[in-house]
């Protein structure tokens, strides 16, 4: 028997349809082959497979890590069942074009599908999700020959993929990677190097694995300008095993079903690789994939925040503990946890952070969609602006959603009391899984520096202006709407003003003292993230307020929005105070004094 209270489809449908206007997107030619009802069926199917297949397996697969013997990784049967159900249903192909054998669905739908699977088991779905991202990069940058050979099996889910960037000495600093590529006579390359942290570098889920490896061609310049991208298949076209081998597994806090490996490339003489894109342009190609992956990480982190919220809400409704403060009778029955205001605070906080984060990540997906639609009509100016806006939004999505997704999961554990600290309840597992998200795909510290150091200032401040224009537009519509929306719009206006002033002050001061400029990038990410998410809560209020009276779901949206504005948004004042003027405490502390 299925139960929907853990993953109600309405939560996502509300965001997609009422807040982000999925319906009007579908008028574009590129979506003429589908309609809203069909996309709802796609979501229903995702929810069913996630809920009925992934969720029941999640605790078992968390307990049963993949194993390594003779360089081969074996995953438990359950992982095969779940991944098989995902691929079998065709989820692998949602985002690819009809021409490439895909389904050409909006990015918003691909992300919403991922939200259900992440809420059920993010590490399990990471196998096909990584392959989807890798295939997307191959589609964008691979030669005709490579696409012919590798794209179809990856889109069909017969072969999976990896991204092999990190090395033991080169994590955040990819400029320091040393894996080397030597040209061979036949136009291919021989690669030698040691990679670290590579997810899914080996497994027995698919017959082949297509690795995308960053390496330096012999004689390439130092730093990021000398990095190239290579396609290195596990099984070569002639059927022989390439010179790649997993030499160790990392035993992790969470995300255990996803095999994470120490990966030796070419230790028997050199692995055969094909150059993807131009020489020395590897990082640029890889960032194409990483930008999508960063949105997916943010989305997934918020989806786990949402999962923790739903689990703890169910628990709080059932668990009887204590009596109302006004009750003097010790023999009166105990009340559900939801009767206590402090527990409701924990629940509202999770709801505000998780559903706010989902709204943010789905908005980023909407920008991807709008960009594609603009490009289809040959409207390069609009497409360019959307790309610039998306560049600003991406580190916010990755950093904000992952930070507050984990924060929400922490509160989910708290709602469960001692039971939340045991393996008998899902929330500790979700927290452990989610704790990866602030670390991988560029740590949140790196995201913050990317946002402030590169993205908001892009185009002489044009990028920041694009974001501000969206926020101002929301404020204007909010002021003209119902009483709840207009009150929140007034508060948002103050916060947006604060973000604008802080950003300008920072950008103007940057040339004088670059180190100080970036020293407090993290509070800047929180300031920007909280302001953008406050706007997205206003958008939710705009959609919810008219029908809220007779509808608990919509009333809940108003309550969570109010919570975010009362309890979270004021924190932006504190962050702004660390940025303008720059608080120099961390900057000036001598490492020896720590």
């Amino acid at each position: 028997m299925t139960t929907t209270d853990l993953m109600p489809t309405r939560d996502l449908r509300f965001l997609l349809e009422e807040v982000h206007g999925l319906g009007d997107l579908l008028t574009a030619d590129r979506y003429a082959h589908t309609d809203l009802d069909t996309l709802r069926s796609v979501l229903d199917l995702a929810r069913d497979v996630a809920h009925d297949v992934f969720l029941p397996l999640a605790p078992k697969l968390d307990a049963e890590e993949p194993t390594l013997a003779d360089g081969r990784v074996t995953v438990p049967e359950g992982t095969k069942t779940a991944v098989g159900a995902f691929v079998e249903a065709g989820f692998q192909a949602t985002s690819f074009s009809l021409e490439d054998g895909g389904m050409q669905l909006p990015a918003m739908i691909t992300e919403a599908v991922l939200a259900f699977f992440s809420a059920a088991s993010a590490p399990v779905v990471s196998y096909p999700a990584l392959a989807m991202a890798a295939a997307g990069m191959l589609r964008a940058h691979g030669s005709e020959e490579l696409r012919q050979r590798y794209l179809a099996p990856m889109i069909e889910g017969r072969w999976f993929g990896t991204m092999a960037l990190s090395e033991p000495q080169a994590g955040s600093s990819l400029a320091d990677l040393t894996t080397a590529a030597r040209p061979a006579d036949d136009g291919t390359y021989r690669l030698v190097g040691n990679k670290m942290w590579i997810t899914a570098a080996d497994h027995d889920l698919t017959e082949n694995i297509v690795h995308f490896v960053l390496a330096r061609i012999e004689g390439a310049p130092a730093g990021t300008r000398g990095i190239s991208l290579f396609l290195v298949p596990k099984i070569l076209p002639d059927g022989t095993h390439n010179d790649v081998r997993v030499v160790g597994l990392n035993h992790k806090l969470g995300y255990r079903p996803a095999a994470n490996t120490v990966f030796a490339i070419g230790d028997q003489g050199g692995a055969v690789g094909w150059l993807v894109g131009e020489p020395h342009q590897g990082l640029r190609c890889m960032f194409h994939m990483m930008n999508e992956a960063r949105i997916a990480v943010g989305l997934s982190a918020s989806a786990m925040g949402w999962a923790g919220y739903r689990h703890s809400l169910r628990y709080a409704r059932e668990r009887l503990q204590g009596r109302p403060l006004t009750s003097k009778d010790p023999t009166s029955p105990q009340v559900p946890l939801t009767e206590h205001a402090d527990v409701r605070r924990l629940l509202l906080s999770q709801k505000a952070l998780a559903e706010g984060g989902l709204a943010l990540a789905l908005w980023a997906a909407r920008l991807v969609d709008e960009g594609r639609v603009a490009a289809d009509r040959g409207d390069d100016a609009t497409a360019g602006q959307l790309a610039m806006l998306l560049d600003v939004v991406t580190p916010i999505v990755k950093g904000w959603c992952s930070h507050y997704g984990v924060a929400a999961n922490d509160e989910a554990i708290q709602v469960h009391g001692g039971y939340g600290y045991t393996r008998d309840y899902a929330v500790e597992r979700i927290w452990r899984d989610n704790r990866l998200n602030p670390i991988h795909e560029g740590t949140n510290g790196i995201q913050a520096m990317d946002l402030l150091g590169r993205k908001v200032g892009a185009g002489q401040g044009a990028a920041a202006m694009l974001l501000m224009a969206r926020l101002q537009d929301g404020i204007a519509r909010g002021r003209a709407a119902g009483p709840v929306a207009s009150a929140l719009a007034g508060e948002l206006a103050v916060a947006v003003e604060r973000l604008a002033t802080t950003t300008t002050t920072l950008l103007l001061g940057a040339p004088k003292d670059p180190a100080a400029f970036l020293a407090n990038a993290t509070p800047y990410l929180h300031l920007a993230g909280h302001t953008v998410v406050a706007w997205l809560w206003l958008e939710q209020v705009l959609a919810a307020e008219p029908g809220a009276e007779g509808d608990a779901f919509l009333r809940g949206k108003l309550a969570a929005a109010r919570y975010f504005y009362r309890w979270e948004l004021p924190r932006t004042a504190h962050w702004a105070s660390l940025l303008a003027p720059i608080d120099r405490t961390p900057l000036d502390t001598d490492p020896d004094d720590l």
Partner: protein
Amino acid sequence: MKVGLCAKVTADTDARLKASADGSSFEVNGKVVVGPYDAFAVEEAIKTKEKFKCEVVSFTVGGGDDVVAQLRGTVLALGADKAVVVSDPALAGTDSLGVARTLAAAIKKEGCDVVFCGKQAIDDDNVQVPAMVAELLGWAQVSRIVELEIEGTDFKATRSMDGGVREVVAGSLPAVFTAERGLNTPRYPKLPAVIAAKKKPLETPDLAALGLSGGDVAAKAVTTAYGAPPERPKGRKLEGDVDTMVSELVRLLREEVKVL
């Protein structure tokens, strides 16, 4: 050979049903789905289609956009070739017999040889319609099947009976079968099929198109009200040492609950 299946779109098993304030109807809070027993019927119809390479038509009485969307996303996406959704204002207050007459007329019009239904819908739990359909069509009917073999026009069906006994029934088509849990494992649709289902034929005849009139479906028994069951009496806590509690429990089970 043509296969029919009857699919009712109902509230999901965990959706909360609530009688409306005036008791004239009930509201569903949650998702609507093709009922779980109907899902076994759908799967059996698709398996039959795969075996005989024949056509499958689904039949539903009444339905708005929600129902149509559900049928497209599930029944048609899973492989039914056409859906017939009978829509007529006169069906609003009908009863099981009215529904059965409507289904029988639609099935007859399509010319099916075998029809699968779920053993019951999970909202009203009436368990009446399939037997009535078979009777109206003059067909054989086997309820609660857990196994089925069809060879030519002959069938052999295994029924599940209470107490774990299985009954094997043989006969010839045409026949109506109702599906019990265990008959098969319903598959999930595939996404390309979900998308393609948008283009599959879905007909919405009214009663007249089936040769019926409003009078044919007028209810013989009408629902006069919906309401909530009386609140359950509070649990009772047994006191004393273990032996006293156990013997008190046995007494209660025997005398009050009457299960021992």
